[in-house]
């Protein structure tokens, strides 16, 4: 009974579907919830790949969209079929009660219903991502999911939404324009962060010269992203779990990171609660003990006397050789050479870092203080916004700016793009 009913529903005007605006143009509708469920229908498996391979490929395809949108996708094997948002299946010719008949091998390889199901023509030779023959099931799935989400075809070079199948490199990804197209429907990724820092790496070139490189990382809850500043996006495939990438430190909800970097010191510390850990960048894991044999983690009160805990955030000022620790509405300036808080501190954050525009300030409980080598500036983050701190270069350009002043807030997602959560079930892909 369900198939004829669905067919008739398709023919009837869809309630709450595409609506016309005053000019008669149809507006694209989008899913209204953040977590969408999907299922590969058991009576519609492909005859060409193992079920596990098919499910893995679809899981990866959904995850690729999740990496660039506020949407999460969860495979649902138990709910009633009508409760699953997107159902996928393979068929030949007349299939799955669908009014669109597949044409056999060649030409049409799949189709998708707006906000609905996805069908693949099993007469096509679908292959896994590792194959260089046939039609990549992953690529087709990403394309059809784009339709299900509300995207149309485009002939723009490089877009995954081109109507014709174009063999891509095995490592095809969603480019800037595809991301922005889907974000027009679902918005950009927002959210606060726990920790962010530029991780310094020293390398020697072939002449033996030491070169310094940095990688930008953002942490939130139990996962992290590497942010590629020159590409305006995160590394493909992120986020990853802290547990797998950063050994020996707490696996979630970090408070702060500080890199004390002077001519004689190169020390990296993570903070959580009343404790801190030192990270060994050479061994790529946390130190288990210091040079005197005392074990990590240590108490903040012992390593940084006068600093309260738990902290909101912290950053290291290389020029002054001070660590600024933030807690609620106060900031503490810690002299790393004298190992003590400066006499004039703590201060109100608004006093130490005054607002340039009155009342435009994070005020207290800052989520994150981050010094960016890419932008040569300190940034304060709170919620979905950031405030840039006046730098030496800003001062040179405008001497009237207050030292350590805070510029008006801006949206984080407008400067660091597409730092998106994924569904926890896909974190280990």
């Amino acid at each position, binding site marked *: 009974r369900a198939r004829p009913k669905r067919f008739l529903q398709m023919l009837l005007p869809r309630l709450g579907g595409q609506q016309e605006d005053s000019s008669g143009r*149809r507006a694209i509708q989008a899913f209204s919830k953040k977590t969408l469920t999907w299922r590969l229908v058991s009576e519609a498996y492909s005859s060409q790949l193992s079920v596990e391979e098919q499910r893995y490929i679809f899981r990866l395809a959904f995850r690729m969209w999740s990496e660039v949108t506020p949407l999460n996708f969860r495979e649902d094997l138990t709910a009633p079929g009508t409760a699953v948002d997107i159902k996928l299946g393979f068929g030949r010719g007349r299939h799955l009660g669908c*009014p669109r008949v597949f044409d056999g091998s*060649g030409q049409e390889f799949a189709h998708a219903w707006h906000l609905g199901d996805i069908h693949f023509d099993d*007469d096509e030779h679908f292959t896994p991502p590792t194959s260089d023959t046939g039609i990549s099931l992953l690529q087709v799935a990403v394309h059809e999911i784009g339709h299900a989400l509300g995207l149309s075809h485009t002939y723009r070079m490089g877009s995954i939404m081109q109507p014709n*199948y174009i063999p891509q490199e095995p490592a095809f990804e969603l480019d800037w324009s595809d991301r922005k197209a889907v974000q027009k429907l679902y918005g950009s990724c927002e959210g606060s962060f726990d920790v962010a820092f530029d991780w310094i790496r020293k390398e020697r070139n072939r002449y033996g010269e030491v070169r310094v490189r940095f990688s930008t990382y953002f942490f939130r809850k139990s996962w992290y992203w590497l942010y590629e500043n020159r590409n305006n996006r995160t590394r493909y495939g992120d986020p990853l779990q802290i547990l797998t990438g950063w050994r020996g430190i707490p696996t979630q909800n970090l408070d702060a990171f500080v890199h004390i970097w002077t001519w004689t010191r190169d020390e990296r510390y993570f903070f959580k609660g009343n404790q801190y850990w030192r990270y060994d960048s050479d061994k790529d894991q946390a130190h288990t003990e210091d040079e005197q044999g005392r074990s990590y983690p240590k108490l903040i009160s012992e390593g940084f006397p006068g600093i309260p805990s738990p902290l909101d955030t912290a950053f290291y000022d290389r020029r002054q050789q001070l660590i600024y620790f933030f807690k609620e509405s106060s900031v503490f300036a810690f002299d790393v050479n004298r190992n003590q808080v400066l006499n004039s501190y703590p201060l109100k954050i608004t006093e130490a870092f005054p607002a340039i525009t009155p009342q435009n300030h994070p005020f207290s409980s800052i989520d994150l203080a981050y010094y960016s080598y890419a932008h040569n500036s300190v940034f304060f983050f709170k919620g979905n916004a950031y405030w840039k701190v006046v730098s030496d270069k800003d001062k040179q350009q405008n001497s009237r700016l207050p030292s350590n002043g805070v510029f008006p807030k801006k949206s984080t997602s407008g400067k660091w793009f597409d730092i998106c959560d994924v569904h926890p079930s896909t974190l280990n892909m």
Partner: protein
Amino acid sequence: EKLFHSRDRSDLEPSPLHWAKPITNLHSAQRFLSRYGWSEVSSAWGPIPKESSEAPTGTTLAEAMRRFQRANALPASGKLDVATLAAMNRPRCGVPDTRMPLQATLTTPPAPRTPLGPRP
């Protein structure tokens, strides 16, 4: 079984009975243009139109052909030539294409007048 020789079945060939009918003539090209939204004739995102009268004809057909040719970076002759046939026979998604404006553009086209289709 379908014939193959490689362990990974990468050389698997479908039976000729399962091959899609290629687009070889004006009639099938007309249906293609209608099916994928290139003609002014209604191309409901639903069952395949069986009646040839639903396909574009005459100047409508030529204009639809030109639109398709422009979108595919082909000479916009409005005539069914070898290159246009080849473009029509390329593997593709079954969802209708968006309507292209009269001038070719490299920007993402606006929302289609032909609906992608309500959820079945």
